[in-house]
């Protein structure tokens, strides 16, 4: 379903990787792995379509994602280093606008439930600036609970999360894969992932 073909990335004068190939099917997890500066984030941003590959192409259902455009973006959810949470808005308002931008418009009750499931019960109406780093990330992650996207692209999703939240997120990824979803993940933390098929992609060696 998702395939990377002969990918190359260049940052400045440096070639991060070249001739990279990967393929991912329904229910599979791609675990991207490698030292700092090996191009993990660049690869993930490429898979989202934020960065154009220097060579090669990324194919979704056999078509170049840069040609598919909006239809591909409706099928994909990306969580980057930045949580995508506005300080002045409450958790609920943040989640609402994030869902709407992703093409869904859940009811207030659905939004509140998703935040509750992320352990933010009673905090949904507080402005995000009074929340801790980890709580802000939880607000960002709550978006995945309401997402209908087939493909999740998660860049270091475990950063700043406590043990409970890591387990929540893992259960969520497992559920997503069990429903036939796809996920691409990078992490430096030692996290056991026993769901479905896990493929590993090593960069920088």
């Amino acid at each position, binding site marked *: 379903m998702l395939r990377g073909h002969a990918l190359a990335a260049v940052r400045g004068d440096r070639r991060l990787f070249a001739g990279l190939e990967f393929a991912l099917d329904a229910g599979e997890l791609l675990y991207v792995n490698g030292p700092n500066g090996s191009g993990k984030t660049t690869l993930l941003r490429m898979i989202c379509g934020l960065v154009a590959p220097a060579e090669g192409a990324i194919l979704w259902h056999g078509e170049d994602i840069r040609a598919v455009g909006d239809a591909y973006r409706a099928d994909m959810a990306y969580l980057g280093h930045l949580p995508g*949470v506005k300080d002045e808005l409450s958790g609920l308002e943040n989640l609402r606008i994030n869902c709407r*931008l992703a093409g869904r418009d859940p009811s207030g009750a659905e939004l509140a439930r998703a935040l509750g499931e992320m352990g933010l019960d009673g905090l949904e109406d507080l402005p995000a600036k009074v929340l801790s780093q980890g709580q802000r990330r939880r607000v960002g992650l709550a978006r995945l609970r309401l997402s209908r996207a087939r493909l999740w692209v998660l860049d270091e999703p475990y950063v700043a999360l406590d043990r409970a939240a890591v387990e929540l997120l893992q259960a969520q990824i497992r559920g997503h894969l069990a429903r036939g979803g796809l996920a691409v993940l990078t992490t430096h933390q030692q996290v056991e992932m026993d769901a479905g098929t896990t493929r590993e992609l090593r960069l920088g060696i």
Partner: protein
Amino acid sequence: MGATGLLSGTRYVLARDLTLAGRRVTDVLTTLFFFVIVVSLFPLGVGPEAGTLRAIAPGILWVAALLATMLSLGRLFTADHLDGTLEQMLLSPQPLSLIVLGKVAAHWLVTGAPLVLMSPLLGLQFGLSGAPLGVLMLTLLLGTPVLSLIGAMGAALTLGLRGGGALISLLVLPLYVPVLIFGAGAVEAVASGLEADAHLSLLGALLVLALCFGPWVTAAALRISLE
């Protein structure tokens, strides 16, 4: 997808940005006070001669409106860029140019519209009255959205650059020249007893042109800036 569906991205972002502006009122007031102060400095510098003031009023009000808009452009995308929400907008299945249109509309409502409302008061201070005052307001009403639309292109192109603030002035101010010429020109024409129709039509044409191409160019510039 109907018209409402297509514009839903615009509507959501517009509503979000207005909420944000409501919670950061100081940002809104800074632009307005800047406009008022710059305009009020001129009588102090030029002297109280009524004829001179009336003659230079349209130009001063228009230049001050340009500078006030400039001042607020930095905020247009920077905050969203820093907290990652801009990334999410780029990855939205909604057309990016329509999301940009929502942001620009919010920017105008928050910075441009108060200038339009404030202008008659400042015009009075310069001895403008009657028809020229009305035309001044009308030109600002037509012209300030163009300033926001053109400014958004510059803000998108300089996003994330060091010294982006100075660069954006160099990039955008030359593009503001036609708006300034026709805006101030219309008021001067009416003040000297001529018709301002031609000036106003040209301002309207600039607005239509900027509405058609501005959001689209800005969207492309954002994609390049975030790569």
